[in-house]
């Protein structure tokens, strides 16, 4: 799980721990790339705007690796351009932070099964 905002990170970890084993949390995109290589998680939950390497850049890099990761973006950007960019970067899920309680577990399940999920309240898709 990659998120640079400490309060959000704690909140997401609290939510996810109810359903999953959270194997690692990182604050920036560079750390995300390193942790993905060592921890080999089933699903990555990634914020769009991370320091050093942004979430979207990190996703594009991971897409080109031998074992592409299953990525769910968790973001406040309610914007179809961001959703398209996320899909182009190989992400399966796109969840708005405001709806994470209901949407994030669904998105993770779908991503784990190789399916797409986008928060229904994303406008203009």
């Amino acid at each position, binding site marked *: 799980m990659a998120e640079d905002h400490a309060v959000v990170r704690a909140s997401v970890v609290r939510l996810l721990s109810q359903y999953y084993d959270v194997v690692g949390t990182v604050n920036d995109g560079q750390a995300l790339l390193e942790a993905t290589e060592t921890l080999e998680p089933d699903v990555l939950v990634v914020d769009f705007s991370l320091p050093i390497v942004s979430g979207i850049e990190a996703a594009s890099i991971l897409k080109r690796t031998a074992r592409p990761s299953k990525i769910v973006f968790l973001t*406040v950007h309610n914007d179809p351009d961001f959703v398209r960019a996320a899909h182009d970067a190989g992400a399966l899920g796109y969840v708005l932070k405001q709806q994470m309680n209901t949407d994030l577990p669904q998105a993770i399940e779908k991503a784990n099964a190789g399916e797409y999920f986008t928060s229904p309240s994303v406008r203009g898709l």
Partner: protein
Amino acid sequence: MSSPRTTNTLVKVDFSTMPKRASARARWSAQSARAIVQKPDWHDSEKLFLQVFNNSHQPMSITTLAEGRYLEVNPTFLSLLGYTREQIIGRTSLGLGIWKNRAQRTEMVTRLHGEGRVRDFETALRGANNETLIWVSSADLIDIEGEPCILIISDDITEQRRAEQRLQNVSARLIRAQEEERNRIARELHDSLNQKLALLCVDLEEFSRTHQDLDVSQELHALCLRLQDASDDVHGMSQQLHPPKLDYLGLIPALGDLCRELSNRRSLRINLVSEQDESGFDRLDKELALCVYRVVQEALSNVIKHSGALAARVYVRKRKDMLYLLVSDGGKGFNVEVARLKGRLGLISMEERLRLANGRLIIRSRPHRGTQIEARIPLQG
């Protein structure tokens, strides 16, 4: 002055028509000096000429045309360049290394051969202490005892150039500081405030879900919707200050948003067209992308405020070595010179931003003929 009649005549010619601009003064001085030198009444004229020559605040020199050997220089010339008379007279300007760019002397001599005189010729000179001086010179071919010579009268604009440079540095710093500040506030709004609002929303929804009382639950849901609305406002404000798309998705999606947003808010149809080669917009430098974005923003804001046009077009083309931008409308247009003189901030800020990116701005507009704002920015690699 041995002859009062001659003196009177010269005084009348000299000062009644004294031009105001410094370069014009240099021009006039060169002409009058030549006139004096060529006067048949050599003795009186020579005295007067020497008086002008020695007392002038403008640096003056007489050199041979062929080699640039100094025959005579005035005290202002010596003090500005930091040489003594003995170090200069009889030696050549190239030998002393006074021309920073030797080709400039060749160019001056060529033009003198062609036209007999040179006006407003800007040169970079090297002083005795290796300092750089910028002079704007007028040069005339004169004949001294059968030898073709050059009389050069200059204005020292070194200090003016330095002041201009300082001013440009200040405006560059101002633009940078403004962008940094906008970016900081945008991030603060987006990354901190908006995240907190999002979390509030999440907690409120959770509370509403677990609450048994239907009325309270509905009330909580309504509160959550209002919170989301506030969150959208914060997002919008942050976006206006510094568009996140520019950083994460690149120039074209950010411009697309800008055009869409302005089209929706105003009665203006904006058509965005972009063209790119295989290098793409993706790898465009972020500062450069921001520069183009701000220029488009400023240009479109002018279209909305002043043109009265119903449609505008934004065209961006990226080639390997050049980024080309054109914002055009078919509106009222304006007089470019008047707008420039009025120091309309939009134009200045666009020009400054482009100058920082080594680009240039061309504004084409005429009353009732629409406006075209064109920018060209060179790209490395």
